[in-house]
């Protein structure tokens, strides 16, 4: 009863505010949605780089992460037993498209991976089944890399997320997450070839720079958009209730620490160091997503109606 009462009182307080914070995505069970989006994005990126580097451990990690991401999504849903209904509205709903993308990816990867791992599997890598799996997983990967940003952009109630840069930023997150996941995989299972780690670090640096530029542009866009809710979200992120998570998680863990490890060459780029860079990068991406989702506030209604 006490918990219900606290939640009720908080809702009443929120309804009285000019800028009502969204709490459904990112708080309580809502954190599973952030985890799900994060894992699925990393999985899609890892699959892409796993294919590019012909690196089977990377593909396996991508498959496992996508499965875990799917479970996290189910844990978030209010009625997970009805999840299969989510394929019904692909025509307009980005969540529905993401659900179909994840299903394609998991089904395709389940067909494509076993012959890579087990010599005695009923079908081999050149078979039609494995090729169909490659195609399905590839299509699913493209959807998973692309859909998430649009889920937020379609959320018209939260202007901070409605930036046209948001989908591009989420594509960049997925790529950065994928590169980072592969760095960790290389540290755990060894590199596919001698030059792979160096090339992957190079890719990671380029994508990280892209993420930084896009993020700064998005914040700048929110500040100059003239939308008070967007500006409020930026304030929450940079100087409000989420500032500690943003500066500590996103900037320090996700950017400064790996950048120092790569840039200043405090130590030679050993496999262990690659793993640390990869882990910091993915953790930073999680905080980036978590804080920008939690920073969402709804458009205020009363002021503008009464200003007429």
């Amino acid at each position: 009863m006490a918990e219900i009462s606290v939640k009720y009182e908080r809702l009443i307080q929120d309804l009285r505010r000019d800028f009502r914070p969204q709490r459904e995505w990112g708080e309580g069970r809502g954190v599973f949605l952030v985890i799900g989006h994060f894992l699925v994005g990393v999985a899609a990126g890892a699959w892409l780089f796993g294919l590019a580097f012909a690196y089977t451990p990377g593909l396996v990690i991508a498959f496992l992460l996508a499965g875990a991401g799917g479970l996290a999504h189910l844990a978030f849903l209010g009625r997970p037993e009805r999840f299969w209904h989510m394929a019904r509205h692909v025509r307009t709903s980005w969540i529905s498209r993401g659900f179909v993308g994840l299903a394609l990816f998991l089904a395709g990867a389940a067909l494509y991976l076993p012959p890579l791992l087990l010599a005695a599997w009923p079908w081999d890598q050149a078979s039609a089944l494995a090729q169909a799996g490659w195609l399905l997983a590839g299509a699913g990967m493209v959807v998973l890399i692309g859909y998430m940003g649009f889920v937020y952009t379609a959320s018209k109630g939260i202007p901070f997320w409605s930036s046209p840069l948001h989908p591009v930023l989420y594509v960049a997150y997925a790529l950065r997450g994928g590169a980072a996941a592969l760095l960790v995989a290389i540290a755990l299972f060894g590199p596919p070839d001698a030059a792979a780690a160096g090339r992957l670090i190079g890719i990671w640096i380029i994508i990280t720079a892209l993420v930084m530029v896009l993020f700064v542009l998005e914040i700048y866009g929110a500040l100059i958009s003239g939308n008070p809710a967007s500006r409020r979200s930026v304030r929450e992120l940079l100087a409000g209730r989420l500032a500690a998570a943003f500066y500590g998680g996103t900037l320090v863990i996700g950017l400064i620490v790996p950048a120092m490890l790569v840039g200043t060459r405090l130590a030679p780029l050993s496999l262990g160091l690659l793993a640390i860079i990869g882990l910091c990068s993915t953790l930073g991406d999680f905080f980036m997503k978590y804080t920008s989702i939690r920073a969402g506030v709804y458009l205020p209604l009363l002021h503008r109606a009464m200003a007429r």
Partner: protein
Amino acid sequence: MRWGMVIDLKRCIGCYGCQLACKAEHGTPPGVYYARVLKQEEGQYPTVRQLFLPVLCNHCEDPPCVDACPTGASFKWEEDGIVDIDHDLCVGCRACMMACPYTNRYFNDQPQHYFAQGMTPYEQTRTVRHQQNVVMKCNFCRDRVRAGKPPACVANCPTIARYFGDLDDPLSEVSVLIKERGGFTLLPEVGTGPAVYYLPP
């Protein structure tokens, strides 16, 4: 036909009658408000004024909540334009809550009651129809409207600040009021085409 509502802000006295009538009609649990009244004070003594803004689902012409819903649980009735929820299809993803610019959707995530002793017999009777872990919102009291009655908030407004009618009929009371008194909608810039209009205070 397209059902719509007009709320005269000059007549609204902020009595919360609409909110209570709605609660009584639908038996919504605590924390779920199909209709509510936003209230604010402006100015400094002695020139102070109170502002009231009754809000509810806007039953938009182009509802972003319907587009965002992955299951089709949020939908729009073709015959009367009312935006409704099929609770048997809702998975509780809350995408519609993020898509609604008017924040008039609520997630019913746990058994709730108003008093510390637990559910009263009245609450048990009235809340039994509501599913848990789904999103809830106003449906313009569609059952009442189909039976020829106005929505509960309209019928119970003591100052007759609310009007209900067909927006597609240019001669209906709501259409005439909007035209003659400069009715406006909330957040027109988001382009959803609300069916709830306000008359200036």
